[in-house]
């Protein structure tokens, strides 16, 4: 019964995560950037202008943000596989990851649109007041980062902690599963993506948040598919 529910949950959430990839693609994909350039100000230029996408498309890109409370349920699948490792190595990292996703939906994914507002307005009607533009842009970024602060802490803290728990060998997942964990996927994306040429780098790095959720969710769901211990 429980296992059946977990299967349905994992498959459903993984499918819904694909829509996040579309949103990420609109917000952050640039066909001109190679991997190394994704960690420079050139990437910021792509974000703050939404790559010149029209307003309606940027609004469409916001919509996966609505689904993050559902994406956060993916932590439940991990938790069932990790709970035998005890509170500190299961509940805490999964709760941190769930918290991160709950916050990221509103403040980060939907919030990305705010970062491109000035670029969108400038593309439409021009801008003749650079001092105002620069100040407004600075304030937008500050509010974005500040709102995102706890989500980022939970995201990185939870990811590392989760990786430690997998490596402890006390969970239902084998140690090698670290490669399919959020930490493994994130590391893979950053390292491999950094060496990729344009336009492939954008597929990996522009949509890094989607892969970060999708691959571990699908992997954990498949691994737990027939593990009877899940119901104990």
């Amino acid at each position, binding site marked *: 019964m429980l296992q059946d529910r977990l299967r349905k949950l994992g498959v459903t959430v993984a499918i819904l995560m694909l829509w996040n990839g579309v949103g990420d693609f609109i917000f952050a994909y640039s066909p001109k950037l190679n991997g190394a350039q994704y960690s420079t100000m050139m990437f910021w230029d792509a974000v703050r202008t939404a790559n010149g996408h029209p307003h309606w498309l940027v*609004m469409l890109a916001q919509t996966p943000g609505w689904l993050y409370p559902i994406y956060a349920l993916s932590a439940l699948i991990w938790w069932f596989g990790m709970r035998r490792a005890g509170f500190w190595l299961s509940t805490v990292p999964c709760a941190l990851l769930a918290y991160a996703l709950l916050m990221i*939906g509103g403040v980060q994914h939907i919030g990305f*649109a705010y970062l491109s507002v000035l670029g969108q307005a400038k593309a439409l009607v021009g801008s003749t007041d650079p001092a105002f533009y620069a100040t407004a842009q600075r304030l937008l970024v500050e509010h974005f980062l500040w709102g995102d602060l706890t989500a980022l802490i939970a995201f990185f803290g939870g990811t590392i902690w989760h990786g430690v728990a997998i490596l402890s060998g006390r969970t239902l997942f084998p140690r090698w599963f670290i490669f399919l964990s959020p930490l493994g996927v994130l590391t893979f994306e950053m390292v491999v993506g950094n060496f990729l040429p344009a336009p492939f780098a954008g597929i990996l790095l522009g949509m890094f948040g989607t892969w970060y959720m999708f691959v571990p969710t699908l992997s954990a769901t498949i691994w737990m598919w027939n593990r009877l211990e899940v119901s104990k």
Partner: protein
Amino acid sequence: MLKNHLRTLGISVSILLIWNGVCDMIYGFSSQLNGNEYTSLAIWDVMRTAGGRPHWMIMMAQTAGWLYPFYALSYYPWWVGMKRAGFWLGTLPCLMLAYALFMIGGIQHAGWAFLTVLAQAKAAVGSTDPTFYATAERFLVEHFVMGDLTALIAMYGGSILHAVGILSGKTLFPRWFIAFSPLAVLFYTFFIGSFLPAPLAGIVITPFGTWYMLFPLIASTIFLLKRADIN
């Protein structure tokens, strides 16, 4: 055991909710608006400028947004009391309200700050390009409303469905408990607030989101703690 959990949850989340009230006041309180004006465009002028309050204070106002995943736990006591009414009248309304709070933390509470950015920049360095200003403001509002769309639907839909659940008489709560439901608190806040003069109207209406979460949480927790059959 369950009562202990409910007590701990009720007290902890209630205390955390007070901070939301402080932040609501920073975003939307005006000492000059009476109740009627709070439902006019005058409130938009306050919101988009945060009443002229400084940048650091508006950043402080964002911080309550971080706590919304905890605020969403306030529907756990409601669910405990309503689950016997079944999925549609017990679980679904509580899920919708929890979803609303999950979203509101990031997109609405932390997001209000974005609506004030242009006014903050104008106060700091002036603005000589009204066309750009107006266009950027329109985009900000549109992105805010679009992001907030599902949260609003879940909040109002969930509040109404929740009230229907209580009125069905199938929950642990008596029908008169509708008076302590989120829908009722929302109604009191705006009804009473609309008759109040400034600055009292601002104290009642501005933190409406806080009252909306706080009073139903306290009421449902106390009610359940007094029930002998909750363990």
